[in-house]
């Protein structure tokens, strides 16, 4: 387990740390857990935005409107 974790040091404004500590108290979790969760969410959101950009371009290229989605699924899916 320890081999999968790297300890890093980052600088965070005091006010943000205080706010985070309040959340830690409220949720009975430690700082590391909350930092990890926030990072995971941030990275997932970045992936989603990249996929959205790619997908919107594909949708525009295909000229697909809202009402066509069901039709495409019916035609393509086995």
């Amino acid at each position, binding site marked *: 387990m320890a081999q999968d974790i790297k300890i890093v040091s980052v600088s965070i404004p005091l006010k943000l740390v205080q706010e985070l500590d309040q959340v830690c108290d409220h949720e009975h979790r430690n700082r590391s857990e909350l930092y990890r*969760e926030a990072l995971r*969410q941030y990275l*997932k*959101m970045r*992936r*989603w935005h990249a*996929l*959205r950009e*790619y*997908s*919107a371009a*594909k*949708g525009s*290229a*295909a000229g*697909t409107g*809202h009402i066509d*989605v*069901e039709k*495409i*699924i019916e*035609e*393509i*899916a*086995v």
Partner: protein
Amino acid sequence: MSTESSTELIAVDTGIWIEGLLYGGPAEELVKMAVSQSIKLMTCESMLLELSQVLQDGLGFSPAGAREVCRFVRDCAIVVKDDEGPASGPFDPRASLLRMSVANGATAIAATEHSRLLRLDQHEEIPIVSIM
């Protein structure tokens, strides 16, 4: 994903993922809520297969692009096997939405934009709703 039992579980089908990806709107909001762990989304293996197929064959996604979408779905939703719940005829991802909704006793609603499913209104007391 959070394992808190109080988080609402919403079964979604292929159309919801495609709506969110292509057009944003309420379907995208569902995905964002799942990322922030406000809700849990559930889909199944046959729908992931269908999603990949529709993205590539119907919308011109590259195989790598479709794979990345499916990886993302696996990371932000619960993906169940299709054999969970009673079999109800031939392979059909739309039937899968109903099966997985019932098989997982905690499903709050089943979200779809599929007109035939929406006409059912509910399935074994699980509301079938449009999010648009």
